[in-house]
């Protein structure tokens, strides 16, 4: 009762704040960036962030109130679709582990879309075994010099800054010798090359670091604490993949159901059974996502986030596979193999053939389904860990 009342008060209060802000700042003014900066400074950027850092410490669920008001006013957008890693992963990591100075320095340009962020985690030799990574950072006074190769980096070609995890001590066990940095991508030691994927396009990049420099002031967390900070980033990644709120029949099931309704000639009894099952599974998965968000809002965070990502991957693959089959002879065609550089990932875009191919990445990116099952088994169900052979100093591990 009291919670509901105060939430209603908060909602009304926020609407009033937005109205006041819009009266003072022309949403159709000449400089969209100035508008966005002012919105950040007014605590109307992300209301669940602390005061002084773009928010007001309110429940996250109230953000939609603010977004709706600004959208209705035709206010400039910070284009979150172009900075998914920055907003979804970098910002919460900086907030949780950064210094007050780092928060002040990075969060505003990040939120306003001035600075796109990317994530330098995976390496050719460190995929699921991220803690085994080999990119070295060596300290000399207040500067670290970084050498190594990173892979599967979305947005690296557009990014101003990167979340970087690097090995700073090879003489200790692998999880203990890592340190986390924010790397300036605009420097000579950083080379970005597109990585073409099986869909024909290149969402991702390979990043070669050759004597790249990072100031020690851009280190996030203590030296040797890189693993703990990385985990915070990855947890946010898994919530952002598969945890998004969507309406009924949103996501991958939408085009499948639409094709089914619009093309009765494509229907067969076998496909009908499959569609009913997929539609029900997709709707139940959506409800599970809704329940997860209700738990978070009620302050009962559950471990269901990893379940959401697993289910999301499986459903996307099953539904898109169904779709290609539903297309019959057209399923043999493909829209375009031209090498492109899309601005972001769109799992549900283009044609059924594209969706079918792109979905294969869903069970690999952001933690493979196999690693997620290990996490559920060990951290949720408390099952014993697999016998390990990689507990000694990192430099002595067979590679």
């Amino acid at each position, binding site marked *: 009762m009291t919670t509901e009342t105060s939430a209603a008060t908060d909602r009304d209060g926020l609407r009033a704040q937005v109205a006041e802000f819009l009266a003072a700042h022309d949403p159709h003014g000449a400089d969209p960036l100035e508008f966005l900066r002012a919105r950040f400074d007014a605590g109307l950027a992300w209301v669940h962030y602390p005061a002084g850092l773009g928010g007001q410490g309110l429940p996250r669920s109230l953000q939609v109130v603010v977004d709706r008001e600004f959208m209705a006013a035709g206010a400039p957008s910070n284009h979150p679709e172009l900075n998914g890693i920055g907003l979804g992963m970098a910002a919460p990591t900086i907030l949780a582990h950064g210094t007050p100075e780092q928060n002040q320095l990075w969060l505003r340009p990040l939120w306003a879309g001035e600075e796109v962020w990317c994530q330098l985690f995976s390496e050719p030799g460190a995929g699921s075994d991220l803690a085994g990574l080999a990119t070295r950072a060596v300290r000399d006074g207040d500067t670290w010099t970084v050498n190594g190769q990173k892979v599967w980096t979305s947005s690296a070609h557009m990014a101003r800054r990167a979340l970087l995890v690097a090995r700073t001590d090879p003489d200790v066990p692998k999880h203990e010798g890592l340190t986390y940095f924010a790397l300036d991508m605009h420097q000579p030691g950083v080379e970005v090359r597109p990585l073409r994927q099986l869909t024909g396009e290149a969402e991702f990049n390979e990043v070669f670091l050759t004597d790249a420099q990072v100031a020690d002031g851009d280190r996030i967390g203590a030296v040797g604490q890189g693993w703990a900070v990385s985990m915070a980033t990855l947890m946010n990644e898994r919530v952002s993949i598969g945890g998004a709120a969507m*309406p*009924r*029949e949103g996501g991958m099931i939408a085009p499948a*159901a639409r094709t*089914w*309704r619009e093309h*009765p000639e494509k*229907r*067969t*009894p076998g496909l*009908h*059974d499959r*569609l*009913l*099952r997929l*539609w*029900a599974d997709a*709707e*139940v*998965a959506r*409800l*599970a996502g*809704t*329940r997860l968000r*209700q*738990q978070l809002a*009620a302050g*009962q965070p559950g471990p*269901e986030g990893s*379940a959401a990502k*697993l*289910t999301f991957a499986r459903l996307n693959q099953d539904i898109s596979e169904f779709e290609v089959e539903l297309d019959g002879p057209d399923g043999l065609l493909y829209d375009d193999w031209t090498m492109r550089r899309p601005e972001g990932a769109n799992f549900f875009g283009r044609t059924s053939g594209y969706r079918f191919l792109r979905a294969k990445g869903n069970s690999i990116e952001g933690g493979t389904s*196999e690693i*997620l*099952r*290990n996490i*559920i*088994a*060990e951290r*949720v*169900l*408390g*099952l*014993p*860990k*697999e*016998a390990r052979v990689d507990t000694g100093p990192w430099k002595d591990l067979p590679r």
Partner: protein
Amino acid sequence: MTAAPTGAAMPGKEPVGPGASGQVRPARVANLLYTDTEEELRAAVRGLLEDKAFWRDVLARTETGQTYDDKLWRSLAGEVGCAGLLIPEHLGGAGATFREAAVVAEEIGRAIAPVPFLGSAVIATTALWAAGDTALLPELASGAVTASLAVPFATGTRTRPDPTVRLTVPPKSGPKPGDGQADHWLAGTISGVADALPASLLLVPVDGVPYGLYAVRTSSPGVGMRPQASLDMTRQLCEVHLENVPAQRIAVGQAAEQAMAAALLAGAGILASEQLGAAERALEITVAYVKERRQFARPVGSFQALKHRLADLWVAVTQARAAARYAADWLAAGFGPETTLAVALAKASCSDTGLKAAQEMIQLHGGIGFTWEHPAHLFLKRAKADSLALGTADAHRASLEVLADLQPPKASK
């Protein structure tokens, strides 16, 4: 209960689909969590069941002549008020909603308790209440009378059950109209009725024009109840035989059809929660076992082949819980089209997951799981029987043809 179904939309009669009207957007937001009150109720029921429904006793009872545990049911009725949970307070019940009933069902599923909660406190109660009854419900509320809707347990929610009982002429001797409350006479046989063995009151759908719903006391002359060897002996079915039995008419025509539809829909929705509870318990027991059981000098639960199966099962239980809660919440809000959709999703999801959990329980226990002395077979038999009861997963998914506008191919010429 919060909303009377009288005059509410008949389940399944109003198709909703994204077709012409765009996306389906339910008007209210369902609460998929458990409230504090619901958790308190759960704790009370679980405490009682842990004390009085130990699985060895449940197993032993299946080989006796009394497969239902009357004493346990009296405790649940008397101490926790489970019998009259859904009955309004002015009729002597607790005035709770289907949300609370679903929590009780989860606990009964966990324990595989042989009590007629589903048949009496949910299905028969909903039928009587939907038919506007005020005379019989107080008897159910106190636990003095246990009732069962006399339809085969396999009856789905989509079609009106085809009654096998007909009205007859009154016998020359015996009670006459005006004697007590009997006003009609019935004859016929219904096979595979759940929760009828412990019942003293049967609600019998009767064929004819119009269709009707009648109450029969099992103590009446001419009522035969033949226990059937059942796949799930913790909810033993029976064949009900009625031979010129005096009956009281409860509802007729559309009112009777609505009462039946509401009762079967509520039954399927609450059964989903029972399946969820059983699945959750099967997973818990199995996880505990693979942590203890050692082979190759290590706990078998440290092998990835087993861990991944259990992780997948946990994910399935997580999904089933969301579906079951959605159905319970919409049932608590009434009997509109969204409730029908919610129940279909829940029964389909929980049937599949319940069966998967029981099957994994047996496989991951290895040999011991295949023995009579281990509870795994109780879970398997309950899960398989429940998946066939009140509409299979396939049947519930088929209702999405209309509810979600996913029409089948045209029949080939």
